[in-house]
C-alpha cells in the first residue's frame, strides 16, 4: 500500500507541466511552434501533447468523441431512477404552493375553505394528488437512503455504521410523521372547540 501511495504522489507530479488551464507565459510562447519534449504524452514519438483544455480534444482531427445522447438518463435503470428522483423537486414545489393556497383558503373563512375542500375532493384532483404523494414519498425514500453516504459520523474515532445513520433518519421520519398526523387529526376532528391557546 505504501509504495502505491508514493506512486500516486510522484506520478502526477511529472504530468504537472502544461496541465494548468492557463499556461504560464513561458509555455504560451511555444504554442504553434515546437512542442517541448515534456509536453508529449508519449515521449518522443510525435504524439499529441497532453491536452490543456479537455474541450480541445473535441476538435482533435483523429480522435473520436461519441456525443452524449439527449436522453442519456434513459441509459440504464439507475439513471432512470436518478432522473425521477430529481424530478420530484417539482412535486415539492407543487406541495409548497398548495400549502400556501390552503392557508389562504382557510383564512378567507368557512365558505372559501368549503369550496377549496370541494375542489380537493374532485376525483381527478384526488388522483393527481395521489400521484403527487407518490412522488413525495419517492423523494423521502431516496433522500433518506442517500443520507448515510453524505454524512460521515464519527464517534470516538470510529465511523458510525451507515446502517445506523440510515435507521436514525427513517426513525426521525416516522416519528415526525406521527406527530404531524396526530396534530392534524386533533385540529380537524373536534368541531366547535379551539384546542389552541
Amino acid at each position, binding site marked *: 500500500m505504501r509504495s502505491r501511495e508514493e506512486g500516486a504522489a510522484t506520478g502526477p507530479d511529472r504530468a504537472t507541466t502544461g496541465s494548468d488551464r492557463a499556461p504560464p507565459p513561458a509555455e504560451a510562447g511555444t504554442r504553434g511552434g515546437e512542442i517541448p519534449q515534456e509536453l508529449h504524452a508519449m515521449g518522443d514519438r510525435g504524439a499529441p501533447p497532453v491536452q490543456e483544455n479537455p474541450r480541445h480534444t473535441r476538435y482533435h482531427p483523429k480522435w473520436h468523441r461519441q456525443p452524449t445522447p439527449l436522453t442519456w438518463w434513459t441509459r440504464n435503470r439507475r439513471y432512470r431512477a436518478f432522473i425521477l428522483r430529481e424530478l420530484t423537486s417539482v412535486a415539492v414545489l407543487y406541495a409548497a404552493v398548495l400549502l400556501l393556497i390552503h392557508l389562504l383558503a382557510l383564512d378567507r373563512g368557512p365558505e372559501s375553505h368549503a369550496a377549496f375542500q370541494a375542489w380537493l375532493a374532485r376525483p381527478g384532483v384526488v388522483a393527481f394528488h395521489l400521484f403527487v404523494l407518490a412522488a413525495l414519498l419517492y423523494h423521502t425514500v431516496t433522500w433518506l437512503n442517500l443520507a448515510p*453516504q453524505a454524512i460521515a459520523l464519527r464517534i470516538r474515532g470510529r465511523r458510525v455504521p451507515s446502517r445506523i445513520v440510515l435507521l436514525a433518519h427513517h426513525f426521525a421520519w416516522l416519528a415526525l410523521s406521527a406527530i404531524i398526523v396526530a396534530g392534524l387529526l386533533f385540529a380537524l376532528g373536534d368541531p366547535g372547540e379551539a384546542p389552541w391557546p
Partner: protein
Amino acid sequence: MENAVDTVTLKVFRYRPETAPEPEYETFEVPYQEDWMVLDALNHVKDEMDGSLSYRWSCRMGVCGSCGMTVNGEPVLTCATYIEDLLPGPIRIDPLRGFPVIRDLVGDLGDFMAKLPRVKPWIIRKEEEPLDAGETLQTPEEVGAFRQYSMCINCMLCYAACPIYEMEPDFIGPAAIALAQRYNLDSRDHGADERMDVLSRKHGVWDCTFVGECSVVCPKDVDPAGAIQRYKVTATMDWFRSLLRPGRSG
C-alpha cells in the same frame, strides 16, 4: 481450442482513423473456457484472429486499472468480468465513455492526468520535520479515516460512469475528488485549504449532482460519490465560516 466449453460472440468497437473515419463494430466468434474473463477473450482475438485490435491491459488481476472498458453498456474491468455472467451474448465491448478514442478500445486519459495534480494528491506539511525526528505515527483510527479512499487504482471507471463528466469535460471528476479527500483526511496532512481552493471553484465539487453511478461501478469500493458529498458539506461549512470572519475569504 483445448478445454473450450463453447463459443461466444464479441461485438467489438473498432476505430481505425488511418483507414476509416467512422468507428464500426466488428464481430468475433470466440471459443472460451469456463473461467475466462472478457479480457481473455480479447487476448484470444488479438493472438489468434486479428492482431491489429488495440486495447490496454497489464496485470490481469484488478490491480493496475488499465483494462477498463464498457461491456454491454457498463463500465467494468475486463479482467474481472466473467464471460459466464454475460451469456448467452453477444457481448458488446466499447471503449470507456467520456474519453476521446485514439484507436479501437483505447481512450486518451490525458485529461485525468492533467487534473490529478491540480488536487495535490500528496501529503502537504506546514513544516517539514527533520528526518531524525522519526516517523510520523498514525493510530489505526487515523488510518481508517482515509484508507478507503487510498484504494483507488485510477481505472477511470467512475469517470466513464459519470454523465456529468461526459457532458462537461471540465468537471474535475470523481476519482480526483476522492483522492483529494484521501489526503485531506490524513492526520499528517495540512493541505486541506489548498485543495479547497481548487475543489470549491467552478467545475470542482459543485458540478456533481450525486447521480451516484461512480460509486456503483468502482471496483475498489472507494465510494467517490460519498467523498464528493462530504466535501460539499465541508466546503459549505467553510464558506459560512468565512462569512463570519470577513478578514480571510477564499
